[in-house]
């Protein structure tokens, strides 16, 4: 029996705040979480045009402290963690010994430690795996007393700038000066905040780690701004799908290797050359495009969405792949999906057939993201 089943239902620090705003709560990753407030479509479109506040406190915030932490982590992730500069963030994958994907995560070099954000549904298994890998000089701290809020959308930076948030040191950058995938420590009055310019919507924005007891004050202050509304898990899912971002447990899992998941960018050049991360031999044997199957985007002909679990079939009806995420794109006003298809069918523009409830539905392999990313990237010199 897994930890997930034996755990009792957990409440978010903002539980009563969500309910007070009329949220519909659903069970997710062992927590009761807000799936929507006014409606998925309206919340989604609001985030694409303004700024949305998401409570993602179910996610695991983990700190690795001590000499050799980066090297120890590199044994189980393919990212170049030891070369990560202070204040920089890297997206990477937690790999099993056979190279299968156990989770995806963000790693920040804070200068004092490595700060990791992992998925809520996998965090306890991840932590057990980390602990088994870490040398005696490296300690792991699961920051269960911290909440995590995401402020996402084209007006996120303007909104956050209205709160008087100062860098921990006067000569460090303010939140608006951070570029995409940069982070730093800040103070909001006497409340410490860890702010990252990152997210899961494809938009500009921030992820803000805040002590649990101060979460409500921060969420209330942000939602009092004209640019900001609270947004539920439903829109978080449709936003990330439009952004082409995979969801762990759906678009990848322990049976999927990184190249198959179309995550080659997470296999850094230096680490491919070292080839010393978990499952490296099996993972790199597929690099860059020698896998049998690949995660692709799909446009669906017609208006009917296709859903996770629908099969990709050939002309004779044989199952040759599977849809792993699917829904209706509020921005594009048509259905979109992610699916695993044989490598020979993975080219953009390839026409494929998905069978749903016994009915064939024509689809076309599409470039991802479906909706362009709007990140605040550092200008290239």
């Amino acid at each position, binding site marked *: 029996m897994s930890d997930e089943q034996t755990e009792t239902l957990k409440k978010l620090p903002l539980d009563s705040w969500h309910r007070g705003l009329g949220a519909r709560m659903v069970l997710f990753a062992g927590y009761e979480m807000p799936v*929507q407030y006014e*409606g*998925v*479509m*309206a919340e*989604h479109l609001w985030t694409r045009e303004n700024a949305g506040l998401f409570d993602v406190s179910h996610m695991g915030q983990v700190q690795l402290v001590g000499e050799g932490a980066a090297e120890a982590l590199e044994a189980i992730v393919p990212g170049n963690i030891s070369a990560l500069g202070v204040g920089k963030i890297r997206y990477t994958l937690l790999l099993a010994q056979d190279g299968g994907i156990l989770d995806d995560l963000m790693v920040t070099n804070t200068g004092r430690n490595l700060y990791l954000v992992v998925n809520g549904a996998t965090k306890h298994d991840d932590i057990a795996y980390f602990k088994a890998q870490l040398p005696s000089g490296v300690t792991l701290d699961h920051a269960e007393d911290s909440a995590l809020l995401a402020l996402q959308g084209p007006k996120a930076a303007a909104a956050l700038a209205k709160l008087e948030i100062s860098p921990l040191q006067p000569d460090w950058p303010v939140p608006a000066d951070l570029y995409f995938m940069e982070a730093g420590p800040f103070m909001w009055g006497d409340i410490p905040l860890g702010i990252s310019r990152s997210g899961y919507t494809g938009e500009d924005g921030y992820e803000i780690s805040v002590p649990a007891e101060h979460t409500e004050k921060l969420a209330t202050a942000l939602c009092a701004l004209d640019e900001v509304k609270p947004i539920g898990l*439903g829109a978080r*899912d*449709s936003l990330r799908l439009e952004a082409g971002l995979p969801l762990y447990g759906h678009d990848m899992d322990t049976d999927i290797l990184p190249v198959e998941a179309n995550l080659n960018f997470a296999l850094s050049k230096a680490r491919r050359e070292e080839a010393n991360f978990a499952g490296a031999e099996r993972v790199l044997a597929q690099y860059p495009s020698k896998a049998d199957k690949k995660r692709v985007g799909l446009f669906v002909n017609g*208006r*009917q*969405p296709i*859903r996770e679990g629908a099969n990709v079939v050939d002309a004779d009806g044989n199952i040759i792949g599977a849809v792993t995420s699917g*829904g*209706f794109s*509020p921005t594009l006003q048509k*259905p979109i999906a992610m699916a695993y298809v044989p490598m020979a069918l993975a080219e953009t523009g390839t026409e494929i057939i998905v069978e749903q*409830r016994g009915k064939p539905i024509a689809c076309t392999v599409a470039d991802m993201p479906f909706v362009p990313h709007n990140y605040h990237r550092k200008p290239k010199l």
Partner: protein
Amino acid sequence: MSRYFTDEHEWVDVEGDTATVGITDYAQEQLGDIVFVETPEVGAELGQGDDAAVVESVKAASDVYAAVSGTVVEVNEALEDEPALVNSSAEEDGWFFRLTLSDTDELGDLMDEKAYKAFVADL
């Protein structure tokens, strides 16, 4: 005309031996923004409890069951271009299909409006 309800949140208007079927306002509210409705084929013979239609919101697909058995005689073509009619007018313009009842006794299995309201109030 009499209106009946099911515990699957469908409504059934009966006039003579013709029944018009849709989902209730409570159901559309629970589903959220509806983006597609798959209606049955005209001429389809549905048994009570059979899958009759599929209603798709941004997030999920939900089955609509045949509350009563019969032969489909008409479907609401307007839903093809404007599925959001189910949100704006679930219990009128957003109807799904009409069928000729094959067994009017089945109506005895359904709730009247008062019973349905009490059922929803308990959810």
